[in-house]
């Protein structure tokens, strides 16, 4: 959905609510249920899509506060769309507080902390089935630092002018995509062989500094952990516009497979309504793979089950095998086997372990990666 259609849909929604009230009928707000139990996965589509389940909020004494807050914030967001102003969620929280301050009549709506206003914004998005960027509410840009000597990006600015960025002219500086990269046009100056998404931003920087982009006709992206909307949208754009193979290189552990890689490839349950634009279904898992540990004699170590976050990751991985339609699909059986291997062996190996193969050759990890791509050693 685009910003232009949001005012119209919002007005229709409000008008329906008003008519219901006039007739002493309880208005009902419906939103897509964004959870795993309402997620479908079709390998032909390639990402998690919402099921039929809806969260219905019927007006009653208990929900009147939630509904009033939703309509109040919707009015603020519509004003932003109208004037072209953009805000972050935090700014919207303070804008809402400011409105309350200037009109004591609105005091009952006051938000005690940002989590309350954030939840209302998410509810509006789910109700209108739009991204929050469509409501001119942007998150901080994070991750997605991109390096390439072949890629040229053309950005269409709000005033219609175009900005052209040749990534090859940026030296060692990266290009960072915005949270809504759909307004970017990509072009390759020369044939691009592949795109490599590296989980660790630091390792991606090391590759660039060691001349990865000089030796390879490639796009190199640093994901910086769990991929942000920017990284996810950007990977999707590269996949669709350049049609180059994309490989993900990260740690061999439950969190990376189940959370980071799955989100990049098929989106997440929390973002069901925007997975279509924010997932790259063709991305492959390049490693670290269990066979890499054996082949290159990599140093791995046991999962600390006493560590809360590691124990939680294992538990979530076990849940994913049981409940996540992505891992349950037979086309992804290699990935689910990988998760099973991790759960069974309770070992993990970090991406940086490739640096131990030949400690005196800083380009050894790059050589292994290129070899793995050539030989097709990935999932």
């Amino acid at each position, binding site marked *: 959905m685009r910003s232009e259609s949001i005012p119209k849909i919002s007005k229709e929604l409000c008008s329906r609510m*008003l008519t219901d*009230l*006039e007739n002493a009928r309880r208005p009902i707000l419906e939103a897509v249920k964004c959870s795993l139990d309402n997620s479908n996965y079709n390998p032909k589509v390639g990402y998690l899509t919402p099921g039929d389940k809806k969260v219905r909020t019927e*007006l009653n004494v*208990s929900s009147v506060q939630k509904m*009033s807050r939703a*309509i109040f914030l*919707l009015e603020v967001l519509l004003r932003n769309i109208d004037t072209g102003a953009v805000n972050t969620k935090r700014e919207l929280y303070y804008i809402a507080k400011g409105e309350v301050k200037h009109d004591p*009549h609105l005091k009952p*709506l006051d938000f005690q902390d940002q989590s309350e206003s954030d939840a209302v914004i998410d509810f509006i998005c789910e109700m209108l089935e739009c991204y929050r960027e469509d409501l001119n509410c942007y998150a901080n840009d994070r991750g997605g630092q991109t390096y390439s000597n072949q890629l040229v990006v053309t950005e269409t600015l709000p005033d219609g002018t175009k900005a052209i960025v040749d990534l090859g002219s940026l030296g060692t500086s990266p290009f960072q995509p915005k949270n809504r990269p759909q307004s970017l046009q990509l072009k390759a100056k020369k044939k691009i062989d592949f795109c490599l998404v590296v989980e660790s931003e630091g390792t991606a920087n090391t590759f660039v500094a060691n001349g990865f982009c000089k030796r390879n006709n490639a796009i190199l992206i640093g994901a910086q952990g769990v991929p942000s909307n920017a990284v996810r949208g950007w990977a999707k754009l590269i996949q669709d516009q350049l049609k180059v193979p994309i490989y993900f290189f990260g740690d061999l552990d439950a969190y990376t497979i189940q959370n980071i890689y799955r989100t990049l490839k098929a989106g997440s349950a929390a973002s069901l309504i925007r997975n279509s634009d924010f997932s790259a279904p063709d991305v492959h898992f390049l490693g670290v793979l269990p066979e890499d540990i054996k082949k290159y004699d990599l140093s791995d170590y046991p999962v600390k089950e006493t560590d809360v976050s590691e124990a939680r990751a294992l538990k979530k991985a076990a849940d994913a095998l049981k409940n996540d339609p992505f891992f349950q699909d037979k086309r992804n059986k290699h990935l689910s086997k990988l998760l099973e291997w991790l759960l069974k062996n309770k070992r993990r190996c970090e991406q940086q372990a490739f640096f131990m193969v030949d400690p005196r050759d800083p380009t050894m990890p790059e050589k292994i990666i290129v070899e793995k791509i050539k030989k097709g050693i990935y999932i």
Partner: protein
Amino acid sequence: MAKDKITSSSTAEYFSKNLQQVGFSSPTKAVLTTLKEAVDNSLDACEEQGILPEISVQIEKLGAGTLKNTDLIRIKVEDNGPGLSLEDVPKVFGEYLASSKFGRGRCSRGQQGIGISAATTWAQLTSAKGVTVVTKTKTMRQPVQVQVAVDIKHNKGVLKDKKEGKLKGPHGLSVEFIIDGRIQLQGEGGLITYLTGTALVNPHLTLHYTLPEQKVVTITRVSNESPDVPEATEPHPHTMKLGEFIAHSHLFGRMALKAWLKKGFSRISDNSLAEFVKNGLDKKTLDMSVDKVSESQFKDIFSVIHKTELMSPSTKSVMTIGEESFSKSVRRLGEVDFFSVVTRKPSICDYKPVAVEVAVARLKGLTKGEGTEDGPVQVLRFANRVPLQFDKSACAMVKAIESVNWRAYGLQQPKDSLPLGPYVIAVSLVSPFIKFKNASKETIDASDELVEELRRTLIQAGQRLSRHIKKEHREQDLENKLRYIEQFCPILVDCLCRITKAPDKRKKKATEGLEKILGRDLTVAKKEFKEADLAAKEAAAKGKIQIIKEESAEAAPEESVSETEVVEKKTKPKSKPATKPKTKGPASKEKSAS
């Protein structure tokens, strides 16, 4: 081979070097333990003779103590008990392990005869003076004052400076310790916590106390019945281990096994003997003489007895406060809003008879610390009617409280923690053999059986309390709903009209429609409140919960309240809606009508 000569030490020598084991591990604890030992002894003595105890406590600072960071403190406790003969005074105050209660299987406060002698030793070690005792029995013409010191080498009490003394009553005992210590009034180890706790579980006690820089406080008794001191009954067979069982037989000499079982144990009757036979005991064995029974036969008999269900130990063997007296006493805790009290039937836990009593009360007016709106509840623990004040977290009682789901009864509770709110949960455990974790009797060992028994009592008290709390929640819910209608109706309609640019006519109609919708919800809320109110009233009428009228909570503690008496509060309940609706409108009218 060791060159050093092996020597023996007296019990007094051992304890004088290890006073920390019996409650003298810090200056603060020293004051509390000394007071506690003196008061416990007074209460035990009064109860033995059926005297209603009246105890005066005076504690004052005399100057700096000899130890670093301590004060020199005078602790004086005077009672109206039977007094002690001069012959017994050195044994009681100056000799370790001299006790009239050791191993008798009674629910007395003191057991081993260590505590008060340890207090004398502490006084002797820190102020070079023992304890000053004034005593008068009915047969003595004048009160006699003596000073008792502990002869540490020989574990004997030594009397000094005998002279004529003064006492308030016709008989009684007064003890005065001058010790190094530090005074802590409030909190877990505070003197006031101890004194009010003691009053709570001893409804028949009148207590006067004077603490430094404080006025004299009198807590008057609410029960005129001196508790029946439990008779030392024969042991219950389920409370014994095999070794004890066999040893017990040696006390009876030559007699038939069945006669021994009936005479030497409680709760074994002819019917029980028949049950034993049914459960596999050879009838002929029952006619054998006890001294002829072999060890393997004892083993079989013991196992059959344990397989057979017997009546619970006699309630006479454990001493309880009773729901009625406990109810009266709870009101002495402070400004009590409402409370519930439960006394469970005695049962066997870990082979010992135990009786558990619980009171849960909501207090008013607490502003800081435990028992406030946001803080954890205040827990008062009692073992054989003595407050336990240290090492709370390891205690079976706290473990039991934490294991109960108080959220089901309307209290807030973080996971596996004490519930929150302005409540006092008083748990009293009475048993002739309480398993303490240490000699200073500060915390009760948490066995699974005991925790379960405590838990059941707490659940019962929680269930009783919940009826009133639910009513309050419903009332608060009703008020919230009224407030929501008043506050959000105009905002929602205004916003919708602004977005759709609707005319005033639509706005008015939508407002009316919205009020109509929410009014229906209100009717449901009112009905729910009425039902909850009725349930709470029924519970109160059955005496399961007591709601204190605002004025009567502040009234003199002597005022007695019968178990079934319920005085409904006329003012608003303690629920505190964040803001009350002040605007006028149809909803306000509806509320006043309700």
